[in-house]
């Protein structure tokens, strides 16, 4: 998996993910990237999932772990551009109700200020 971080309005960190978030390939990388941002005091994080091709239960677990650690530090973690299959995987485990999910980047970024 490839990760890159951009900064949006209001200091929102936009994390663009590309590739797989699966066991042994991308799952730990996701956690480390999020932890680094949180350690730097950057607690408003938007994960752009548009180019994520595959996710498995490990990847979902890491996503949930990241959500919890960011929230526990007083930050917010939201999701952008969920591909349909990842949406399905989150829906069947009822996690879709946990995450704030957006289709528009500008709306997503603005929502952190609300």
């Amino acid at each position, binding site marked *: 998996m490839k990760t890159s971080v951009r900064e949006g309005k209001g200091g929102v960190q936009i994390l663009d993910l590309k590739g797989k978030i*699966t*066991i*042994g*390939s991308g799952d730990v990388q996701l956690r480390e990237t999020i932890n680094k941002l949180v350690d730097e005091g950057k607690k408003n994080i938007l994960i752009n999932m548009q180019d994520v091709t595959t996710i*498995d*239960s*490990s990847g*979902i*677990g*890491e996503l*949930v*772990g990241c*959500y*919890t650690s960011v929230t526990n530090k007083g930050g917010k973690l939201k999701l952008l551009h969920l591909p349909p*299959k990842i949406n399905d*995987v989150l829906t*069947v*485990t*009822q*996690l879709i109700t*946990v995450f704030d999910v957006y289709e528009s980047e500008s709306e997503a970024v603005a929502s952190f200020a609300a």
Partner: protein
Amino acid sequence: MGIGSPRSEKTGPIRMSLSSRFENIEMAQHLCAKLIAGYDLPDETKHWILMALREALANAIKHGNAQDLGKRVHLEMEVRDDTLHIRVRDEGTGFDPSAVADPLAPENRLKTSGRGIFYMKTFMDDVAFRQMDGGGMEIVLSKKLLGPKQKEEKGR
């Protein structure tokens, strides 16, 4: 066209012994994709079958064999009577499937693990567990590959 070539019904099951490395999951998925390629299934259904296979193998490698490279994961895949049967056996100490926590329970929803078996059950028609006499756990996944429409066509 459309019914495809039920390859393993002619050739018998594919049997493999894999080392306990996550990298092997994709190779197995690739073979499974070939096995079901001839069936007129929606791409989405094929995707979920491969995800269930991934979860079974990941479970065997991580929890069953604890990533011990001295232990193997035994995989068997076969299409029989228009049904895909996948057997995944590890060389670990086994577990009690009934003791696995419900990932939908509110107290478990934010846990970072415990969803693999749930996904297998969601995406396959049947999931069975068997504690092997000689040690190890076997998971058997089954999925019907032909719906009524295709069966009718096949009968022509």
